[in-house]
């Protein structure tokens, strides 16, 4: 294992640094006023998946690999905006906001990061790695019965990414991974607000199954790459790198 790693590092250092090929970019809908899409030279790579699907591990590996290959990176994730992240955390704690309100609060958080991190990053030619994107936000709302057309209009502000990976893990496996990490299940990740079951374990399984189903349904519209994330970290990362390399070289 160690030997193979050091050899590949050496090979890599001899390789020429790839300058990413530009491709025409578009927004999903109305977009952001005043943004020149032709000036977004960087690449936007999204990793989606439930908590425990290995998103952050994979992103950390990708950052290392991309930086080693000479690409500058920047990361974003949900509820990390300067504008509303604190208020959002507070609102979630009390479970006091109704669906449309919470949904718009998340959209505000996303828009703030979009305008302050994603778009400037892409303009500066960075590889922007998103730990979840509009799809998680949409799927969460869809399983709660929100109108799909409304969500599509709302998130029409988002640029279409260059690659979207959905790390697919069965709900049964997710439970085990969450327990081995924290020995507890998160209220929201268990969909407790939906009243699927008063038993948190049951609710988690049902909720994650609903989320997974909705993601797979959206796959046909948004064309993400479904990644079997039951495999080892290395195997998964190899698959992601292969796809991202193709994005960078424009193949």
């Amino acid at each position, binding site marked *: 294992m160690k030997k193979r790693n050091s050899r590949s590092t050496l090979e890599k250092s001899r390789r020429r640094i790839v300058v990413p090929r530009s491709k025409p970019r578009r927004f999903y*809908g*109305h*977009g*952001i*006023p*005043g943004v020149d899409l032709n000036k977004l030279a960087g690449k936007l790579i999204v990793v989606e998946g439930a908590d425990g699907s290995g998103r952050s591990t994979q992103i950390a590996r990708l950052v290392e690999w991309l930086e080693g290959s000479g690409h500058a990176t920047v990361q974003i994730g949900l509820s990390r905006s*300067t*504008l*509303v992240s*604190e*208020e959002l955390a*507070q*609102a979630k704690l009390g479970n*006091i*906001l*109704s*669906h*449309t*309100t919470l*949904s*718009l*609060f998340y*959209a*505000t958080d996303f*828009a*703030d990061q*979009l*305008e302050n991190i994603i778009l400037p990053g892409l303009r500066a030619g960075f590889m922007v790695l998103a730990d979840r994107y509009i799809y998680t936000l949409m799927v969460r709302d869809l399983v709660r019965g929100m*109108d*799909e*057309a*409304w969500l*599509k*209009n*709302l998130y*029409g*502000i988002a640029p279409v990414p260059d690659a979207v990976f959905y790390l697919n893990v069965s709900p049964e496996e997710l439970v085990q991974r969450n327990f081995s990490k924290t020995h507890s299940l998160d209220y929201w990740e268990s969909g407790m607000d939906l009243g699927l079951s008063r038993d948190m374990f049951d609710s988690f399984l049902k909720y994650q199954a609903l989320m997974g189903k909705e993601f797979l349904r959206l796959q046909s519209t948004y064309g993400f790459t479904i990644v079997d994330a039951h495999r080892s970290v290395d195997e998964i990362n190899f698959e992601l790198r292969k796809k991202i390399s193709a994005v960078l070289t424009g193949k």
Partner: protein
Amino acid sequence: MAAAKLFPVKTFAELNFPGRLIAVEGLDGSGKSTQIYLLKRWLELQGLKVFFSEWNSSQIVKAATSKGKKRELLSPTTFSLIHATDFADRYERQLVPLLRAGYIVLCDRYIFTAFARDTVRGCPPEWVRGIYNFAALPDLTFFFKANLEVSLQRILSGRPELKYFEAGMDLRLSTDPYESFRIFQGRILEQYLAMSTEFKFLVINANQRIEEQQSIVRDLIRAKINLASFRAQNPIAA
């Protein structure tokens, strides 16, 4: 999937709510807050169940909005979204339940404020309207149309310190806040007038005396809502 509904199309009465929603719109300084206050007093004194709601007043969202405004963190998109969040919170947790319970809800500004301001800030109008399509239309919308100079004078004489977003400084219309405010208000007025027919605004000449305006407002409400039978159907809890 059903075709996308671009903007709200039905009023609360048309949706069979027992309550009624009355909105007032107009530029800052048009005197609409005075008029809605007098309207509230009139309705209350007749023994009707009345609730008053102000634009941008949801407690939870307020902290984020004021931080965003104070630190000038808002873009046209986030400005629009954070106000939509505020509106949704009030709409879902207060307005709708009260209207279900037979209240007359008075709103100092409603979705048309967002339509006008966000469009002036450059947000696509269809996008803004689509976001607010969860909300029903008011049963009556009064638009207080004042002479632009009169509105400007009222604001500029009483409160010389203009806030950044209030003056539309984010639009870079002018480096002078007063000049910026004038241009900004002028553009908002254009947007209001463009919506006036579409959303059946009841246009009140706000250059008249307070009493004259109030008397027109009350007449229009009496013509639309039978207040005696409304009160009989929606009595105040003992």
